[in-house]
């Protein structure tokens, strides 16, 4: 979307303030970062930062796609199940006897199948939402249950192990001094940011979520448009499933359980409205980092896992409240 001028005053401090008001999550990221740096000696270390980025990459990739879908005014609850499906497909297929002689190339058909499954399921979700007009929440809730069931049928409730070491080493590899998975995440973040802020598709994403009727009137093909965004989130969920299985060197049918909740939390923390029409990748990136820094920091401080949930829940509500307060228009505003 175009940068909309809100302050005439272009001074640096002012612009920063304006920026922070629009992305309050980043203030929060800075605060928790400082907090854990002070509280725990293991937190502030290059190795740990890399760790955080790797851990963030799984949720982060899905959150990128989810941001598009949610700005559209839709939602995709099936991402967690797609993670498991893509991981199982990939790990299984590359172990098929027919690819045995392919060396490391045997990974390719597996990865392609995994990604294709994600994109196809996304397309299916989008198609149903488009043609039936049923709410995306319901459609993808169905997909979430159905796909998870499919994974159990397909895997016969078994875990698959990757016999190819190149695959399982990939999760721990580095490129230009950064963990490869973190790099993948950062590159896609930049790409989706550009997609959303610079392209016609990105502009239409906001328009469709903001006022669907106006978008239709203006001749935007809303159905196919939404379908593309569902395909994008499907792609990212599959990719996240694959990167996750490279980290574990295996896939389990339970992989990705509750991921949809974490991803939606991250996206909402990042300022995307559930009703659509507003949000940004910069915000989502902040939301993902916030969650991961909290998890990592509290883990280092040996806070029990369920407390992490309690704290995250409170923070979610707190940040959204703050957002509402900060983005008031002052005395002249219309009261509701």
């Amino acid at each position: 979307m175009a940068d909309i001028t809100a302050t005439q005053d272009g001074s640096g401090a002012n612009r920063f303030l304006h920026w922070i008001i629009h992305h309050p999550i980043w203030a929060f990221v800075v605060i928790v970062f400082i907090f854990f740096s002070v509280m725990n000696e293991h937190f502030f270390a290059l190795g740990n930062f890399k760790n955080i980025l790797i851990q963030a990459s799984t949720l982060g990739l899905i959150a990128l796609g989810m941001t598009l879908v949610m700005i559209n005014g839709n939602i995709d609850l099936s991402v967690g199940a797609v993670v498991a499906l893509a991981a199982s497909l990939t790990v299984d297929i590359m172990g098929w006897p027919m690819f045995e002689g392919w060396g490391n190339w045997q990974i390719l058909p597996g990865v392609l199948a995994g990604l294709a499954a994600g994109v196809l399921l996304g397309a299916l979700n989008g198609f149903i939402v488009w043609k039936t007009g049923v709410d995306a929440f319901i459609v993808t809730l169905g997909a979430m249950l159905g796909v998870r069931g499919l994974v159990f049928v397909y895997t016969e409730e078994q875990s698959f192990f990757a016999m190819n070491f190149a695959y399982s080493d990939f999760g721990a590899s580095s490129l230009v001094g950064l963990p490869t998975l973190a790099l993948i995440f950062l590159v896609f973040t930049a790409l989706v940011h550009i997609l959303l802020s610079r392209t016609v598709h990105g502009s239409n994403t906001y328009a469709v979520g903001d006022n669907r009727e106006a978008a239709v009137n203006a001749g935007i093909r809303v159905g196919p448009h939404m379908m593309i965004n569902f395909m994008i989130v499907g792609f990212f969920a599959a990719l996240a499933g694959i990167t996750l299985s490279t980290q574990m060197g295996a896939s389990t049918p339970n992989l990705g359980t509750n991921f949809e909740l974490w991803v939606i939390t991250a996206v909402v923390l990042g300022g995307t409205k559930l009703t659509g029409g507003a949000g940004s990748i910069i915000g989502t990136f902040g939301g993902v980092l916030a969650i991961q820094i909290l998890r990592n920091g509290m883990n280092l401080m040996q806070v029990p896992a369920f407390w992490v949930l309690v704290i995250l829940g409170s923070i979610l509500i707190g940040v959204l409240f703050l957002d509402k307060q900060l983005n008031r228009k002052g005395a002249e505003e219309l009261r509701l």
Partner: protein
Amino acid sequence: MTEPNPTLRLKGIVKTFPGVRALDGVDFDVRPGEVHALMGENGAGKSTLMKILAGVYHPDEGQIFIDDRPVVIRSPIEAKEHGITLIHQELSLAEEMSVAENIFLGELPRKKWGFVDWKTLDERVGTILQKLNADWGPRTRIGSLSIAKQQMCEIARALTHSAKIVVFDEPTASLTDAEKVVLFDVIEDLKAEGVGIVYISHRMEEIFKITDRISVLRDGSYRGTLNTRETDEDEITQMMIGRSLELHRRNIEHAEEGEEVLSVEGLSCGRLFQDVSFTVKAGEIVGFYGLVGAGRTEMAETLFGLRRPTAGKIRLAGEEVHIGSPSEAIEKGISLVPENRKEQGLVLGMNCRDNITLPQIDDLTAGPFVANGAEVAIYDMYRDRLQIKAPTWRTLVGSLSGGNQQKIVIGKWLSMKPRLLIVDEPTRGIDVGSKSEIHKLLRELAHQGYAIIVVSSEMPEVLHVSDRIIAMHNGRITRTFSADAVTEEDLIQAISGLTSDKAA
């Protein structure tokens, strides 16, 4: 005289909605370079006909010809491809997005790879905005503009590409004189380029000023087409509603003035308006007249507790009050019929009756239940008074015609029987027949002792209903007139800020 072949011809168009035959065999044509008015009462089917043209609805029967070739228009995209642009009656904007993105919605200029060509976009929108005399830029968030300015942005869409047919569905409903002049210039330019224009409006003076031919619809059926030069208001009114109306230029009766109901002293709200002082007595109608942006609506909203004043006092019956919210205002006997009724005044997914009785639902109970009969009685009364055209009270408000939705909102606040009634643009988008009915109703209410504030941008309307007229310019009151002593020139001077300092 040889007439050019019509660019567009509609033949025998029929469209039914559940329970309504909205169009019943309508013929209509538009020639290149003409302005063709489409008139009819609220709910006559004007918007429906135009939406069929724009591919929003599909006709049950009938044919559309463009340049004498039959075409089928299945979607708004196809309409655009045929060179048809419809400026919708209701704002059709994405609020969070910029002005530029909204004007070019669905046809943003592209570079390679689907990137938006922001530079071209800004340039083109800049040129268009200049043509429209806009004081806002392409990157302004459209939701932060006033309704009138948003409407101008809608109109700007007619200029983005070379259309063959441009339909304006009540474009002036929320514009005032200054913007109207700009709009008429735009229409003049389009006309000169040979574009065929369909112009829908309930304002006779506009119709007679800018149109070449007039077609009239009544209850979904086609009543005929007349050359504007060869007809007059009375004939058109006859065709539209089947009877003549007697219109007074001016309010001639005066209600007996009672006690002071409202007194406002030095009221200000930031930059929106400053130092506004006036009084309203029981039985009196005070008209607020001014240009868009003069601060009248904002002042009304402040009185209704929708905005927090930054200075000044409000007294109700001599007692100083602080109005913190609309519910407090209602409790104190103030009602506001808002300017922007679709957004602020209606629950579109609720039926007609429930919308009207919504604010008093607490009082209409029988035991723990809402008293059904009482509600229907209230609805029936206002349906008759305001001539609301809806199949039954169960009809969802969202499916009524634009003008009938307005009437529902007005009915809703009238049924509250407030001490002080504030109406903002009471007859915007309302047909001539109902307009005079609403004016009569307002006068009657004043007779019954209500204190009434009417905010209006239509000079005939303020002159017609008010006992006193307060002119505002740039957030300040410039002059106050009594209705018998005012001249139109005085009013125009006062609202454009040209006034000499003497106050009446």
